[in-house]
């Protein structure tokens, strides 16, 4: 299974999750939440116990326990946040290419751009700075068909929804 991936650069620094949620809701009419999975090696349910257990673990184990952060939207497959680097203000969004419906992923990409992110294609392993990134940025053109077709989920016809079904 392949992976869809899109890289974003935020000139003004990362947006707040609340801003992302607001913009996503404006675009899609749906709710999005940011989660991180906490893998556990003890049976427990109490939030305080869980937190204590995590704090108590060694750094290595913590990394094992808390290594996936993702956006979730009911009824769609999760979209993962990856390689987030506060130093150069970049992050990646990832999505399993075998997942059939790309609406959520596409809408997340649109959201990121509407909250100040710019997508870019940077050669791997090269340092990113405010200056060096310029030539790799891809302008956001919301009037193009790809972005225009992302409308509120409940306002789209079945035909329009079907266009997001990915057929590898």
């Amino acid at each position, binding site marked *: 299974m392949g992976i869809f991936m899109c890289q974003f650069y935020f000139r003004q620094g990362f947006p707040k999750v609340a801003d992302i949620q607001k913009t996503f809701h404006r675009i899609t009419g749906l709710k999005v939440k940011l989660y991180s999975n906490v893998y556990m090696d003890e049976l427990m349910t109490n939030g305080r116990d869980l937190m*204590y257990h995590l*704090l108590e673990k060694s750094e290595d184990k913590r990394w094992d326990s808390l290594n996936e952060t993702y956006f979730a939207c009911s009824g769609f497959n999760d979209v993962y946040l990856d390689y987030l680097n506060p130093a150069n203000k970049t992050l990646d969004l990832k999505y399993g290419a075998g997942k059939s419906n790309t609406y959520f992923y596409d809408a997340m990409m649109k959201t990121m751009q509407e909250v100040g992110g710019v997508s870019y294609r940077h050669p791997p392993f090269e340092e990113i700075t405010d200056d060096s990134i310029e030539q790799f940025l891809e302008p956001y053109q919301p009037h193009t068909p790809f972005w225009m077709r992302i409308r509120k989920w409940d306002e789209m016809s079945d035909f329009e929804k079907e266009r997001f079904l990915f057929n590898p």
Partner: protein
Amino acid sequence: MSKNNITDRLKNFLFEILLKEEGEIQAEAWTHLKMLDLDCDDLSRVINEIPFVKTPYVDEGWELFKTKNPTKQDVIDIVKCSTKRREAETFLLEHFELENEDLVEVIKVTENDELAWQLLRRNPANEELEAIMRYTNLKDEAAEELLKRSPDNDELYEIIENSSLKLEAWERLLQQGPTNEDLERIVKFTDLEDLAWDYFLQQHPTNEELMDFVNDYSETGRKRKEAAQLLLERELGMEELVNLIREDQFADEAWERLKKKSPACDDLFYLIWRRTVKTDEAAEWCLKLNPDKKTLWNILEYSDKKDEAALQLIQMPLELYELADLVLKSGSEPVLNVLSERVQFDRSKVNEAELIRKIAEKILNHPELLNVNHWHAGDTHCLGGWAITLHEQAQETEKQFGSEIAASLLLPHYTHLFFADRETVLSELKEIME
């Protein structure tokens, strides 16, 4: 939303260590905590038992607690939640003026007669008298005081339940007019069972009120039969008759009356599903009514009318996994024929008697080859697993349609042994060989 300062955050973290760790780490956390100027709230966390969690520093925490000018409520909280209950109670009495409501809070936990006396001398409110009756030995004293004050029905019930002044309270209740609900709880939970029952009957209880005794949710069993008998003297609906049968109260008579009402399958579903004394009769009744699939599965699962239900089920469109279920519950010829046709298995070449003897011989000579917990596990198999292993065509059927179908087609008369324990399987195999 108040932001905690760094000391509070440190305290919180150390408390978690104190509660969750043991031994040296716990002792170290306690040493660090004591350096952080603990107040009464903090120390309560050390002294009080959070359900099932108790720190080993209760004594030390209590001594420290006393030096921190605790408020009255701080100490009452210790009385309510800690093994330091007695010490905290003494401290409370020595250091504070207690209001009536404080005394009640303490009495509820410590059941202290001394405090109850103090409370009684202070013209307590009615609900405070009720607490004395419920939690201490001064029941009659509190009841006597309460009777002087025109108690309501609930308060009279408390007197009847808790004190020896019950007859006086009972007379008073009769003057005030008890509800049927009042009488029901007196019958169920107090010594005045018969008195209250007679009065209850004079008040013309509804069917629903009588059925409460039959259902006996409180599990006292009181007046159950009597209520059922009275109900049968009345006109009853279908649900009420079903309920009497379910509770096994005069079930024969209830069933006869139910039949006269010509119940439909849905009316009897519950009777079958709950395996009542009339499950088989109800199943037989339903089978005559051209039942739907749901009813037939219910009959198949819970009654003895399995073959009859199976016969009707195979007339309906069934998935293969449903047929697997069916054949395990009824290995009748028509079912086997439908199944073998669906999976294209030629049963004519199977000699069941010969096969079971062959398996029996093998297993009885080498009991270690029988593994009842798995169809196949290496060289061991269960009875059904062995049948498949010894039959080449069935192995193909197993691959395509599963072990249950393949084994059922080979040994339809032994399906009950596919899921039996080891002893049962061995003993039946011995019988076969004899």
